[in-house]
């Protein structure tokens, strides 16, 4: 990697300053820290989530929609979806990186992991919003 950016100017930061703390993956402790922040969020959200699920266990279509449509419940569900899908995406990436040693398959699975996590997040969020905003 060249030290000179495409503009031709010498970089403000030294080579050491740019890589310090970033390691070979160029992302430093980003995943490590995010995993703990979302883990903490999951723990708090899970308590509310379990309460919601117990209230809705075996509930009818109308009751389920009425409770999921409550703004407070909907926001809890959206926050849970955001935090959980971020956490599970990082977690699965670690598992893939640990056990899949073929470079092509590893990249393919990490991309599939990204697709699955984002699809889960968006599908869940869309369903909650559709119920909440009346449709």
């Amino acid at each position, binding site marked *: 990697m060249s030290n000179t950016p495409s503009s031709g100017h010498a970089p403000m930061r030294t080579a050491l300053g740019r890589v310090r703390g970033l390691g070979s993956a160029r992302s430093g402790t980003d995943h490590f820290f995010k995993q*703990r922040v979302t*883990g*903490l969020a*999951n*723990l708090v959200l*899970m308590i509310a989530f*379990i309460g919601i699920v*117990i*209230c809705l*266990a*075996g509930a009818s*279509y109308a009751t*389920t*929609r009425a409770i*999921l449509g409550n703004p407070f419940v909907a926001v809890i*569900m959206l926050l849970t979806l955001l935090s*959980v*899908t971020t956490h*599970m995406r990082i*977690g*699965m990436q670690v*598992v893939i990186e640990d056990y899949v040693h073929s470079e092509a398959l590893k990249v393919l699975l990490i991309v599939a992991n990204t697709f699955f996590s984002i699809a*889960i997040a968006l*599908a*869940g969020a*869309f*369903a*909650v919003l*559709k*119920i909440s905003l009346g*449709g």
Partner: protein
Amino acid sequence: MADSPQRIDRPLSPHLQIYRPLFTMMMSIVHRITGVGLYFGTAILVWWLLAAATSPSAFESFRAVAGSPIGLIVLFGYTWALLHHALGGVRHFIWDFIHGFGPKERILLAKATLAGSVALTVILWVVGLVVKG
């Protein structure tokens, strides 16, 4: 390298072919397995939400599957996996702050995780069944 110093037996990362099974190691493996299970289990959550957003018949299809014996067993397992992974996360938080690494503490923490997850799962299902009536 003939003159390299004699190999020191340093602790290794838990590794199935190198370490004999230890309790904390098994708990670490189970933490990862429950994490992977929860990952795919999110599809059940999204199916439920999408069914409720789609139509009464879509919702009835979900209810029929979730309320079947196999559905209930999967949901019971999912509850345990969620609680086990959550309590395992708390244990890792404690370790992140450099507490509980003593030989007795780490075993106690691992046992508390296991006992707590099983007890909480049973309690939640009893409460759930009572609420449902």
